């Protein structure tokens, strides 16, 4: 059974493609900073240079090295993705489990909460809260994103839990005297592992996008560098008008590729776990 998944996983083109792109960027995150010794903020070259051997991705209007900014910006993207996506997954899963397993009025209340968070335009709240903090860090940004992105996960996990809860092995666990929390942790959750992984992947991608959006409109971290911030700077300093495509293309492309690859990985995984979806 396990080998079968592995077999399909190795064989799945989408999974392979998606994972290799993500891994490539992950590798770049770690190796990239070693490839360049320019300080991402340092004024180290002639301004507004197109890509060259010296500056692989060219320079900004201030003469900063775009490649250096780019590789240093990848880290925060992954960080926010992992942290924000992880938090959203965690909250969503916890709420989904409790609502689905406990049922009754707890379910009703959690449902109501979920509905409310879904209906409230969280992005607008995010904007306002982000503006509320004097100085913001990637960590705080990730926490925000995590705290607002969980509802769909909660819904999905709740539905899954409901259907698992009706399975007889849960009854069996109950008449074995297992506590509810234990049942959720050791009977229900392991069954949803593949699903949770997929949820996490989606949340990961979503968090990266959200963070980029926040950074772009200037509500991201007030220190450090990120891909969204790069785009923000590029646009603010007229990179479009001055034709400095090398400044704004790489960060956006990287985000699109990473998130797109994550999505494709997700479909790949879905196909691996769900025989019906496999390519015919």
């Amino acid at each position, binding site marked *: 059974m396990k080998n079968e998944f592995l077999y399909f996983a190795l064989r799945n083109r989408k999974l392979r493609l998606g994972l290799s792109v993500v891994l490539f960027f992950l590798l770049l995150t770690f190796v990239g900073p070693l490839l360049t010794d320019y300080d991402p903020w340092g004024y180290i070259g002639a301004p507004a240079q197109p890509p060259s051997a010296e500056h692989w991705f060219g320079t900004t209007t201030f003469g900063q090295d775009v490649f250096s900014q780019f590789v240093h910006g990848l880290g925060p993207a992954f960080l926010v993705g992992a942290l924000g996506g992880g938090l959203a997954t965690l909250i969503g899963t916890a709420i989904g489990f409790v609502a689905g397993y406990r049922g009754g009025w707890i379910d009703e209340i959690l449902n109501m909460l979920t509905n409310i968070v879904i209906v*409230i335009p969280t992005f607008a709240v995010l904007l306002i809260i982000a503006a509320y903090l004097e100085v913001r860090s990637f960590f705080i940004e990730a926490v925000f994103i995590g705290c607002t992105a969980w509802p769909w996960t909660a819904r999905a996990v709740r539905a899954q839990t409901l259907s698992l809860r009706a399975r007889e092995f849960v009854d069996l666990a109950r008449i074995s005297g297992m506590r509810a929390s234990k049942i959720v942790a050791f009977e229900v959750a392991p069954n949803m592992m593949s699903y949770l992984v997929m949820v996490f992947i989606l949340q990961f991608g979503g968090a990266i996008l959200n963070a980029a959006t926040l950074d772009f409109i200037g509500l991201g971290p007030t220190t450090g560098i990120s891909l969204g911030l790069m785009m923000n700077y590029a646009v603010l300093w007229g990179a479009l008008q001055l034709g400095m495509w090398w400044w*704004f293309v790489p960060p956006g492309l990287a985000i699109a590729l990473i998130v797109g690859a994550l999505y494709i990985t997700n479909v790949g995984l879905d196909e691996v776990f769900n025989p019906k979806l496999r390519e015919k």
Partner: protein
Amino acid sequence: MKRYLTRKLAIYILTFFLAVTIDWVIPRFMPGDPVQTMLSRANLRAEAVEVMRGYYLKAFGLDVPVWRQYLNFWVAVFHGDLGVSVYLFPKPVSRVIMEAVPYSLALLIPATVLSWIAGNKFGAFAARRKWLDNTLLPVGYLLNATPYMWLGILLAWAFGIALGWFPIAGAYGFDRTPSLSLGFILDFLWHWFLPFASLFLVQFGGWAIGMRNMVIYELEADYSQYLEALGTPRGLIRRYAFRNALLPQITGLALQLGVIVAGSVVTEIVFSYPGIGYLILQAIQNQDYFLIQGCFLFIIIGVLLANLVVDIVYIVVDPRTRRGMMGES
């Protein structure tokens, strides 16, 4: 049905209440004193500032205890009075918003509706069609993964600056004033196109992929198998699958509304399109908390209404929910 609607309505009302409260609370606890901020721009002598501060605190209704401000706020909301903008003083917030709303809607509604329809059609069409599925869907994923602003920037750069085909800022040319003339409408559409396209494309990718996955599920469902066993042409089976897959997509639309609104905010920012999103950024940057409040309130109401519409549409389209709600009789 009635019971269901009452429940839903209750949720909506509660949400509205909470959201409006959050809306009221957050800006009030933001750092910075809006009146001070406003006056510091005037660059006056200290004596004048003191006097004017008192005057404007009163004008903005900030001279009463917080709980009163809260109650006053609710009273005002029901009178459609959202206060006076600080940043656009002395313009009432409601008027500022009303001027921006048409532009936002002009972008958001067509982009969302058209991308939903087109994305779903396309996704359903591509499902289980090997060639399309393998070539065009990766593009769909990439589109859906593209940050709204980046696509906007790319389009603006490629079509606005490099090729110079479209303008990249504003809702209409600087040499025009709004009118119902053909010239103006064409000019408006010309300005509208790029922001619309970037919103449309990103969403299109998402819907197409969602639909493709749903349709594959449906095509594997028992009823599809049965129909196939009865020799039903693929056309009909696909039609059924499409229709059934559409239902989750409707719910998806409701779930996505928040994201779409966020997308339209950044798109408006990229294209300096004078809608609510753009306004909200201005309001935040200028600490105009009455305006922030107003924009947010408007978004809340908009999203709530859209959700309500989606909910109702869902009831109308899906017999399963209708039945579940009405009981078996």
